């Protein structure tokens, strides 16, 4: 797999090695993931595809530290998180990961800016420049004019923009997106993808689950899963040239 990534000097931000996950469903076992290994380098933009039951959701949950593998390693930020306890995993989610969901998952009773702020409240130690950073991110996703609005007062596309800003607020190593355009119409979908693409160009690492081909085409690599195994990995676009990541990231 490494030969598909020509720029070897790019830092590996996340890497899973020989990971398996088995579910017991109604008496018989389902191998959701079967000995899967894959690396994600800084600036990667990976679309994970596959039919339902192929294991793509399981993979995303593992990458998101919401679930633990039965065997194998998951190296995130230089540490094997596969065997970590619940509290440490929570801290790792809060510190190194950003989440974007299909149904946006904003907290209804909070305003736009408060929603963006949520991950900051779980940082130990707290990140400096909290509220300012939220305002900058709201501007970045084009929602400066709606800071005080509630999620119910926004369109789907706008809600997803709030979610993207929220995913960026803790300056994560990897952004995990689960069908980010699944609830949106085509035009809005491409707006959201434009935004993700811009983030990726700025050096962000994005892993996205999708079942739509045209959305997957917007990524740099497409990983197809079948029956819990990696079927194919295809390169859509060349990998991001080496950027001095930290500078690019600071802009966001």
């Amino acid at each position, binding site marked *: 797999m490494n030969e598909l990534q020509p720029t070897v000097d790019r830092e590996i931000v996340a890497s899973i090695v020989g990971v398996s996950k088995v579910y017991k469903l109604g008496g018989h076992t389902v191998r959701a993931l079967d000995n899967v290994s894959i690396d994600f380098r800084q600036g990667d933009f990976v679309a994970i595809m596959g039919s339902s039951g192929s294991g793509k959701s399981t993979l995303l949950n593992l990458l998101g530290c919401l679930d633990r593998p039965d065997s194998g390693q998951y190296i995130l930020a230089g540490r094997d998180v596969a065997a970590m306890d619940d509290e440490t995993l929570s*801290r790792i989610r809060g510190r190194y990961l950003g989440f974007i969901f299909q149904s946006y*998952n*904003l907290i209804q009773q909070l305003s736009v800016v408060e929603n963006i702020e949520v991950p900051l409240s779980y940082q130990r130690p707290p990140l400096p420049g909290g509220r300012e950073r939220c305002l900058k991110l709201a501007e970045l996703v084009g929602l400066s004019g709606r800071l005080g609005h509630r999620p119910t007062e926004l369109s789907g596309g706008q809600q997803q923009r709030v979610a993207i800003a929220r995913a960026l607020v803790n300056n994560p190593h990897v952004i995990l997106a689960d069908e980010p355009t699944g609830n949106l119409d085509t035009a809005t979908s491409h707006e959201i993808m434009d935004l993700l693409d811009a983030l990726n160009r700025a050096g962000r690492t994005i892993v996205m689950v999708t079942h739509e081909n045209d959305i997957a085409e917007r990524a740099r690599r497409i990983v197809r899963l079948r029956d819990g195994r990696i079927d194919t990995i295809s390169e859509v676009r060349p990998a991001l040239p080496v950027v001095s990541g930290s500078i690019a990231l600071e802009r966001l």
Partner: protein
Amino acid sequence: MSLLQQLRLGFRSLMLHKLRSALAVLGILIGVTAVIWLVAMGEGVSYQAQQQIKDLGATSIIIRSIKPSEESSRDVGSRFGISYGLLRDDYERIVTNVPTISRAVPMREISREVRHREYAIDGQAIGCTPDYFGMNRLTIARGRAISEVDMKGYANVVVLAWEAARKLFPIEDPLGRAVQIGTEFYVVVGIAAERTAAAAIGGSLDARQYDRDVYIPLSTFRARIGDRVFTLRAGTTQLETVELTQITAVVEDMKEVDATADIIRSLLQRYHKSVDYAVVVPKELLEQAETMRAMFNVLLLLIAGISLLVGGIGIMNIMLATVTERTREIGIRRALGATKGEIVRQFLCETVVLAGTGGLLGVAFGFLCGPTVNGVRMAVGAFLPEVWSALPPNIRNLEPRLAPWSIIAAFAISVGVGILFGIYPARRAASMDPIEALRHE
């Protein structure tokens, strides 16, 4: 997130369901108010009792004559009627034989009509010695008290209680004028200052009222009224012979009260065939009252505790509903980095806000106890006078006393109840699987 921010967040989440939250708050409010009110009432009653007992004096021992029951009185009954109670000899014996007693004051008391012209009251004629006034902390407002000279000379002089003087002499100055007590005339030489009632003693349930008293020298009492009393009861006349109604003995040191009372009891026992007297020790009464108060408070706290428990269950019910409803929010927060502990804290903060609001409002309503009791009293007095007069004076005169400890305790307990009953729902929220919670519709 700081505690203040968490509390504010909790408040906002609760405001999403205003009615539901208000009902939960109401449960706690009622509990807290109940604690404060009940304790205030209890404190009011026991304060009243304690004041009355304290008026009797902590270093005094009161020996009172008691009329024996009908069966036992037949033995001592003669053709002169029944004879019972303390004797002048008892007084002499107590004064000479009990060394710890610094002072002893005998007293004889009888109900007599007291008149002055057309004004009449049902008075209480009290034959006493000059010491009696000091002993009962009766101060003389005008004129003078009974003196030794009056005692020696069997003088027909009287000191009126403040109320008695006011009723008998609404216009005139009573000093130097004559009042009729029973069949005899007495010259008013003094008026006692106003005095509140003292505790009930010697088996009588009513508190000792001072306002109908007229004081005459004990020697004059014996000479003019005498020991024998005719009473008309159920169509038959009854003759009673009583020498002294009461002896009040005072000891120097409070520590000697109990021992002295024992000596007096055994002394009297030797000379009295039946127990036609009672030895009352105000210090014991005071201790009993303290014990009663403590028991009363425990009982009240129990009742109030039950209502707080009910309030707590209300809170738990609402928090369980909230947790189920906000499953998705919990999932989001967990995904965004919240630990289980932080989720527990978030929901605990909400219950503390609920319980704390209830507690604060309860304390506010607690302060309304005094005005409310007064209002109810005035309303009952105005609209149901017959009900009002049937109430015992202890209730009519009840002044609730807010106990600071009860306010602090009630508030602390309400917050405690919030935490206690919030733990289960909060833990349930925290233990959800984030993946499941995120999928929850």
